[in-house]
């Protein structure tokens, strides 16, 4: 992913300065280890062992998948310079097509059909924005409005009258998607022999840090639907495709400076169409994931995940690894709200307090005193809330990821770098 940075050019200095000259893979690893250690401390102090239990992570990895699909969809569109607000609508199309195909031919057909349905939405967006030059936001909004109407209409025409089929729901899918559990690590079976569940054993001990690592590991190794594996695999695959192949370079060059790409003979319109259609197909896969998960199309089952994908994309600075982290954040919060008892949720406030205090210390060393005081005040408030409550309303957790995205935008926007030509209509012959 460093291919965008020309040799010798210094990347902008980040909040944690001493990492600036380290290799690119060091920082994510440090963040992951540090984050897990922090979570571990918090769950012990707050008496909330469930915060990092395997079940929490298993739920989170599942919940993360549709958001990852949507965010990757956003990535492909925005890297060719098209802002895709219509991700939500394309996911909805994906759920309907997946519901239809799954009902007739099973979950794998649903995967393909979901992608096709989303791609149709992507084509429509490409037609409006690339061919007709309509404002991207306007076109995306129109698609978000059109998609649920189309699906409801199709559902009323196709699903009603069949078993379990209503205007809001497709008949149940035939068959289920296969799931995979790693042998030895998470106790998956190997040729019929049930292997020991190492991570599960370690997870249950609830030892400091080790058990938390095991919990996270269980999330990535236990009962993974193949659609989930597809989502996780598409993150590095997209990174490779976009940053390491000639076609990916052409695609990204259009998002940065279409006239330059055009002058070098890149077929700007065609590649824009391809990028936006892939975007729709990925969003449609996200919809298919949701439909396959509950073995039916349900109206409103997308429930804002397209927008969450968009937020994750921005949170992740328009990069595959970053957007996966953003999607993980949304999914972690979602899986916590679904757990019984609010102790883990309450623990998050202790976490917020610790993080803001750490941030304040960094800011003080940077001599940014007013910001440091602001961070300390916020941390103090979080700590007071943590001490003063026994139960936390689920709604507070619901808004947490959105709030974090807003804060990231507010405080790190100088570090964010969207594609330069994003959102600008371009006609052949334009110089910009």
């Amino acid at each position: 992913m460093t291919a965008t940075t020309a040799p010798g050019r210094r990347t902008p200095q980040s909040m944690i300065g001493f990492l600036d000259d380290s290799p690119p893979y060091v920082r994510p690893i440090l963040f992951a280890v540090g984050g897990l250690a922090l979570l571990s401390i918090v769950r012990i102090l707050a008496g909330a062992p469930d915060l990092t239990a395997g079940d929490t992570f298993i739920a989170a990895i599942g919940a993360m998948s549709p958001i990852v699909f949507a965010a990757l969809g956003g990535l492909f569109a925005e890297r060719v310079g098209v802002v895709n607000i219509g991700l939500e609508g394309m996911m909805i199309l994906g759920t309907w097509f997946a519901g239809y195909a799954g009902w007739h031919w099973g979950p794998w057909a649903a995967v393909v059909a979901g992608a096709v349905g989303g791609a149709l939405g992507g084509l429509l967006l490409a037609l409006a924005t690339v061919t007709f030059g309509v404002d991207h936001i306007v076109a995306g909004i129109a698609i978000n409005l059109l998609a649920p109407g189309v699906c409801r209409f199709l559902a009323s025409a196709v699903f009603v009258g069949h078993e379990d089929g209503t205007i809001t729901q497709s008949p149940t899918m035939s068959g289920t998607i296969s799931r995979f559990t790693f042998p030895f690590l998470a106790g998956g079976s190997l040729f019929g022999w049930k292997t020991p569940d190492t991570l599960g054993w370690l997870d249950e001990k609830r030892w400091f840090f080790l058990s938390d690592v095991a919990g996270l590991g269980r999330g990535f190794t236990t009962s993974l639907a193949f659609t989930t594996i597809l989502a996780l695999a598409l993150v590095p695959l997209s990174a490779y495709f976009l940053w390491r192949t000639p076609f990916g370079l052409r695609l990204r060059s259009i998002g940065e400076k279409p006239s330059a790409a055009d002058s070098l003979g890149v077929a700007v319109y065609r590649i824009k169409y391809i990028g936006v259609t892939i975007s729709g197909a990925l969003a449609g896969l996200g919809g298919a994931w949701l439909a396959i998960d509950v073995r039916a199309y349900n109206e409103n089952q997308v429930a804002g995940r397209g927008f969450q994908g968009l937020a994750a994309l921005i949170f992740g600075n328009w990069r595959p690894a970053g957007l996966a982290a953003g999607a993980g954040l949304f999914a972690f919060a979602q899986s916590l709200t679904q757990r019984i008892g609010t102790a883990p949720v309450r623990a998050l406030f202790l976490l917020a307090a610790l993080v803001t205090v750490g941030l304040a210390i960094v800011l003080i060393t940077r001599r940014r005193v007013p910001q440091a005081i602001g961070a300390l005040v916020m941390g103090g408030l979080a700590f007071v809330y943590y001490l003063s409550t026994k139960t936390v309303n689920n709604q507070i957790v619901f808004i947490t990821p959105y709030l974090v995205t807003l804060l990231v935008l507010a405080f790190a926007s100088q570090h964010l770098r969207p594609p330069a030509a994003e959102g600008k209509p371009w006609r052949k012959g334009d110089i910009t």
Partner: protein
Amino acid sequence: MKHKLIYALAAPVLAVVVALVVSSIALLAIGESPATAFRAMATSIDSAEAVVNILNRAGPYYVMGLAVALGFKMGLFNIGADGQYRIGALLAAAAGAAVSLPGPLHVLFIVLVAMVGAGAYAGIAGVLKVTRGVNEVVSTIMLNFIATGITAYLLSVYLRNKAVDLQSETKPIAKSGWFPALNRLLSWIGYHLPKGTSLQGFLIVALLTGVVFYLIVYRTRFGFDLRSSGANPRAALASGVNPKAMILKTIILSGALAGLAGMGPLLSELHKYGDTFPTALGFTGISVALLGRNHPAGIAVAAFVWAGIEQAARALPEVGIPPEIGKILQGTLLLSAVIAFEVVRRHGQAAAVRDAAARADTHDRAVRLGAATS
């Protein structure tokens, strides 16, 4: 002038034709007759009752459309109108139920709370944009979700009417805080509505808001600055407009209007905020503003058409056709309209350029001829 009129009419006509064609194809695909469907829709809105229903729906759509259009006028996308009006409506409902004031004052107080609350919430996106450069599209999308969380939290923890068990809703607002219906007003001018129908008083508010919107945007210095900031930010800056102040003012005003739009359902219909309160009104506002080209008259037509399609679609089950075709009609109308506007705009622009070039050419020739003869 003649050309201008053709250009103005070409896009809407084109959009309507495309929307009808697409809907007809959808109907034919499920084996229904488009003629039956459209005839049923047309006859169903041919009654005073239906028109009243449409107007009642169109009022809030119109004000919401104006709220969004105000932002669009200067290139701001207030996707967050939805969250803003829900925050405003919840606060207004709670405040309105908590106080007792004489009639008009009570209404005024509730409306004020809604507009201030919604405006302040919109202001968050404005402050983030001017101080931190955060794109308002993204921040308002986030704020929509945050509004969902905040309203649910406030409603379930603090503002809930404990007397109602099954639903979470605020206490009802006393009668002094209701918008009166317009039936009696209509009777005075000799028009009697059929029994059981009532024309909501909010319609007057909506129409007044449209007039005020027109005056502010097209007849004041602020409106001029607003439009010039949207059309050409650099020229606006050069003429002394403070872009940051302009953004902040516009987005807060847009939010306040969104708050006002929520007063339709609150003060004319439901009188409390709860699970039954209409959602996604903000997104309807976006559609209506786009369809109406951000002009108060255009938005009025668009709001009426939008509500009209919804009303007409209700008649479809009677002839055995799924009413969802109305949604397809709305969606394709919107999409084909924005495409048609863009195509016609570009066509007009190209024609203007050709025209100017031709004129410059004749002028050039005339000058040369003049130089040769003298």
